[in-house]
C-alpha cells in the first residue's frame, strides 16, 4: 500500500431537515485513517459520531465536503457503486444486531456471500469458519430468537467478517450487552484487527470500550474535539 490513507474526510458536513427547521449534525470534519488502524469515535449523544459513521459506511451521504475511500471520491459515486463498495470492502456491526429474524445463524452469515455470488459449497464453508471464529460452532442452525444478545452480536460479527472486508464498522457494538459479554465481543473485534489486519472503526460512548482502540477521536457538537493515540491499549 502507498502512503495514501485508507479513508480521508475533508470538510465534511451533514445537515438534516429542510428550510427553517434544520439541524447541522456535522459542522466540518477532517480526519484520515490508515489501513490496519483500530479507531474509536467517542462523544456524547448528538455529537454527530453516528452520522459520521453512517457516512463512512456509505449508508448515508454527506451534505458537503469530500470523503475519499482508497483515493476514490465516494460522494461522486452512484447508489449502485456505493452498494458495490459496501459489498466488497465493508462489514457492519450494529447496536441492534440487525440479523434477519426467523433465519438461522448460518443463513445470516451466508447472506453477504450470496450477494457476492459465491457457490453454495464456498458459502457454507466460509460461514462455518466465520461462526467458529466467533465461538459459535454448534449454533449454526439456531435463529436469532434462540440466541442470547451476546451470541446474536457474535453472529453479526461473523456476518461482517465472512467476506474478509478491509474495514469493519461497528456502531455501539456493545450498547445492548452487559459488561462481561461486552468484554468478550470487544476481544473478538480486537482479534480481527490484530490477526487479520482488518481496519476497525467503532462508535461508542463508553470509555472502557473505547479503551480497546489504539486511537480515539472525540466528537463534540458536530466537530472533532480531540484525536489522540491510546497509550494504555491492552
Amino acid at each position, binding site marked *: 500500500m502507498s502512503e495514501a490513507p485508507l479513508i480521508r474526510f475533508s470538510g465534511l458536513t451533514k445537515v438534516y431537515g429542510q428550510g427553517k427547521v434544520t439541524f447541522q449534525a456535522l459542522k466540518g470534519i477532517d480526519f484520515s485513517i490508515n489501513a490496519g488502524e483500530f479507531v474509536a469515535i467517542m462523544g456524547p449523544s448528538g455529537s454527530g459520531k453516528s452520522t459520521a459513521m*453512517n457516512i463512512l*459506511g*456509505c*449508508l*448515508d*451521504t454527506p451534505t458537503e465536503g469530500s470523503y475519499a475511500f482508497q483515493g476514490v471520491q465516494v460522494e461522486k459515486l452512484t*447508489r*449502485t457503486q456505493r*452498494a*458495490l463498495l*459496501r*459489498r*466488497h470492502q*465493508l*462489514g*457492519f456491526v*450494529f447496536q441492534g444486531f*440487525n*440479523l*434477519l*429474524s*426467523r*433465519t438461522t445463524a448460518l*443463513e445470516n452469515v451466508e*447472506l*453477504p456471500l*450470496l*450477494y*457476492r*455470488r459465491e457457490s453454495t459449497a464456498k458459502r457454507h464453508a466460509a460461514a462455518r469458519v466465520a461462526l467458529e471464529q466467533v465461538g459459535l460452532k454448534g449454533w449454526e442452525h439456531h435463529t436469532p430468537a434462540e440466541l442470547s444478545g451476546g451470541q446474536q452480536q457474535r453472529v453479526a460479527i461473523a*456476518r461482517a467478517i465472512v*467476506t474478509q472486508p478491509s474495514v469493519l464498522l461497528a456502531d455501539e457494538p456493545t450498547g445492548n450487552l452487559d459488561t462481561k459479554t461486552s468484554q468478550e465481543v470487544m476481544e473478538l473485534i480486537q482479534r480481527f484487527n490484530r490477526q487479520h489486519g482488518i481496519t476497525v472503526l467503532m462508535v461508542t460512548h463508553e470509555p472502557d470500550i473505547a479503551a480497546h482502540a489504539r486511537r480515539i477521536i472525540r466528537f463534540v457538537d458536530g466537530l472533532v474535539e480531540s484525536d489522540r493515540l491510546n497509550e494504555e491499549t491492552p
Partner: protein
Amino acid sequence: MLWNTFLLALRAIRRNLMRSILTTLGIVIGIAAVITLVTLGNGATKSVTEQIASMGSSQLIVMPGQRFGPGGSDGAPSFKVADVEAVRSQITSIVGVAPMVNKGVTVVHQTKNWLTATVGTNNDYFKVGNWTLDSGRIFSDAEERAGKAVCVIGETIRNRLFGRENPVGSEIRVKNFSCEVIGLLKSKGQAAMGQDQDDIVVMPFRTVQRRLTGSQDVGRFMLSVQQGASIDSVKEQLISLMRERRKISENEDADFRVMDTRQLAETLTATTKILTALLGAVAAVSLLVGGIGIMNIMLVSVTERTREIGIRLAIGALENEVLLQFLIEAVVLSAFGGLLGIVLATGASIGLSSLMSVPYMFDTNINLLSFFFSAFIGVVFGYFPARRAASLNPIDALRYE
C-alpha cells in the same frame, strides 16, 4: 444473479410462512370464488339452452289477440278447426299442425287425485312438441274422429296416480267420465321457465271439446317447421293466410299473434347470461376483497420488510437485487395461489354442478382472467412497497419504525 435471487426469495417465503400462507389464501379464495360462480353460471346457461332445445327445434304458436298472458284475446274471435285445416293444406314445409284446447281438471285414480291441465289436440302434437312415448301408443284415427275417452299422460301424472306402476291400460276419472290411458310420455323435465312439462294429460281434440269445454273453439294452435326450411318465410305465409281468413285489411292491426319459440329461447338465454354476468360480478367483488386482504398483509409487514431491506442494502445488496427478490417472491406466491385456486375451483365446480344438476364446462377465459388479475394484485402490492423501501438511504431503511 437470477438463481441466487430466486434462492433468496424462496428463503424469504419459507421464513415468513404465515404471511406467505395468508397472502396465498387471499388469492386462492378470490380465484376459486370467481371461477366457480362463473362456471356454474355457464352450466346453468347451457342447461337452459338444452331445455329449450327439448321443446322442439322451432315451433310457431298462433293465438288470438295481441296481448300476452291469460285473458289476452281482447275479444278477438277464436280460431276454428277450419283454420287449422287451412294451415295444414296451404302452408308448405311444415312438420305438422296441432290445434290445442286447454282445460284444468282434477284427475282421479282409485284413492289418488291430482289437479292438472288437459290438452285436447291431435297426433301432430307429439311431433310438433318433440314428445316421445315411453310406453303404449298414440291416438288412432277412429279415436280422434269419434272423440273417444282415451288419453296419453305425462310422467308426473303417472307418479301421482300410479306410483311406479305401468299406467297403460288403466282407467282414470277425468271430471265426470272415465278415460283409458293408452300411452305414457317420456319425461322432459322442467321447462326453461320452471313449469313441469310432464304434468300433462293429452286427449283427442274432440274429446275435450265435447266432454270438457263444450265449445267449437280452438284456443290456439302450434306448428313446427321442417328441418332446413325458413322459419321466417313460414311465419310470413302463416300471417298472411290468417289475415285473409280473418278478413283483416292491409292497414289494420292483426287480432292474433304468432309466437316463435326461437325468440323465446333467445330471450331466455339472454336472461341466463345476464344472471351469469351478475354472479360473475359478485365473484369479482370477492376477488377484490381477496386482493385487499393481500394488500393489508403486505402493507402490515412493510415495517419489518423495510428493516430487512435496510439490512440487505447494508451488507452489499444492490437495489435491483432486492427488488428482483421481492418481485420473485410476489410472483411465486401469486402464481402458486392462482394455481391452487384453479384446482380448488375445478373441484368445487364439478361437485356443485352435479349437485345442482347443471353440466360442468371448463371456461378457459375466466380461468386465465382471474389468474392474471390476482397475480397482478399480488405483484403490485408485494412489489411497490418494497420499491419504496429500496429507494431509501440504507440507514433510513434500517431505522424505519
